[in-house]
């Protein structure tokens, strides 16, 4: 079972057992993790599930698709090299534990 750690701006760590969630966004929404909205439901249309992936974990993730890349240009908080849309990070066995940092704002 994959574990996801969502690190808030103040350093609070929300450790979530992803359960049956299909994506890192969905796991956050299912568990009421603050700072991840996922308003469009996972279509890479709203950029409200933006996260900064911890450098330690970045190699575990699939490459950024063209659709995700375009929407990452439109995030409310600045895009960094480790920016991802968490709706595009599938929980599919590619990692056992993932640490992501919540950006200052999503809207």
């Amino acid at each position, binding site marked *: 079972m994959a574990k996801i750690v969502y690190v808030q701006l103040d350093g609070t760590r929300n450790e979530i057992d992803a359960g049956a969630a299909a994506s890192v966004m969905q796991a956050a929404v299912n568990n009421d993790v603050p700072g991840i909205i996922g308003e469009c439901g996972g279509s890479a249309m709203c*950029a409200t599930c933006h996260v900064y992936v911890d450098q330690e974990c970045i190699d575990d993730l699939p490459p950024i698709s063209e659709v995700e890349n375009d929407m990452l240009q439109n995030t409310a908080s600045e895009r960094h090299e480790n920016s991802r849309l968490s709706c595009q990070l599938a929980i599919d066995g590619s990692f056992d534990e993932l640490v992501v940092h919540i950006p200052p704002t999503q809207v």
Partner: protein
Amino acid sequence: MSTDTITVGASNPVSDFDPYTDEVLANPYPHYEKLRELGPVVYLELYGVYALARHDEVREVLSDPATYCSSAGVGLPNFHTEKPWRKPSIILEADPPYHARTRKVVARILSTPSIARWRATFEKEAELLVDRIIDMGEFDAARDFCAAYPLKVFADAVGLPAGGRENLLPYGDMVFNGFGPMNERFKSRLAKAQESVQWINNICQRENLSSDGLGAELYAAADKGEITHEEAGMLVRTLLSAGLDTTVFTLCNAIISLAKNPDQFELLKKDPSLARQMIEEVIRYEPTFHSFYRTTTRPVELGGVKMDKNQKIVVIIGSANRDPRRWENPDKFDITRKATGHIGFGTGIHGCAGQMMARLEGDIVMGAFARKVSSLQLTGEPVRHFNNTVRGFTSIPARVTGG
């Protein structure tokens, strides 16, 4: 007309259901329920199409544009085999890889950071409008509130002049009728909208738009070579067809849902910050957009049904949003639920590009409504607007009090 029929002995369910009769459009939900229970994929013999009415299959098809394309048109006619009734949209009716070029530009100008600059103006206009309807007391919510707001703030944001805006809703009405069959309803609106088509084509030209709106941004993208100038004009047209009727009807559906569920309106008044998720629930529970089409690009098997290449499939998002396999108490309007994940804006690469703009408008105007209006009553029977694809109202006689 019924949804009860199954051809006995056939392995796949077949129905003589017609999604486009006035009776169904007035209240499609009991029909959708029957359709969902017939099976994941049901053949509609009247139209020669397969219907998807459950959440999972709808999502699967919308998420796979390589197999289920849009370039054959998102209405019933197949543009690959029949002449399109209008020049196909260069974003809605385009497939990858061509789609990404236009989509990228439109998604950028409609993204959260880009539209944030209108928030203050939208808020000011929302306050003025809600004060106005409270002053009126008795009013037509469809005309004086739900239509008035987007026709002011969204049309201003695109950069339209104040005159001639009465052409916008008939134009959108025509376009959305075109997402169904070419029936009498479509033909009559097409004939009726010809003057509006002329006005729209003219207004989409650069010289007729303000220099700081969404329209000007599309032309600026053309100056940079991202799209052509002709395409910029076509995308302004897309903003105008896709961005008005839809938001107007969503606000109509919000007002009706609140008026018919006073407990939910009480919750909203107590905490107006729920306005944004209330709008989300409206779009799940009473979505504006009900159905459109995809077309197979190869022989496929979906939900146990084998289909040929070039097969039209009607995707019923209005039903998917009420699928009990996905939603608890789907027929209950509950503004406290997590409604994100509904398919009211579509999903996948063709998911509504203006959805953050729609949320911004809905959040702001319904937030102002929740803060200022203390009572809301319908004073007469609402008059439904009949369209092949979108559901809303032409008139909602209502009374509000402030305080």
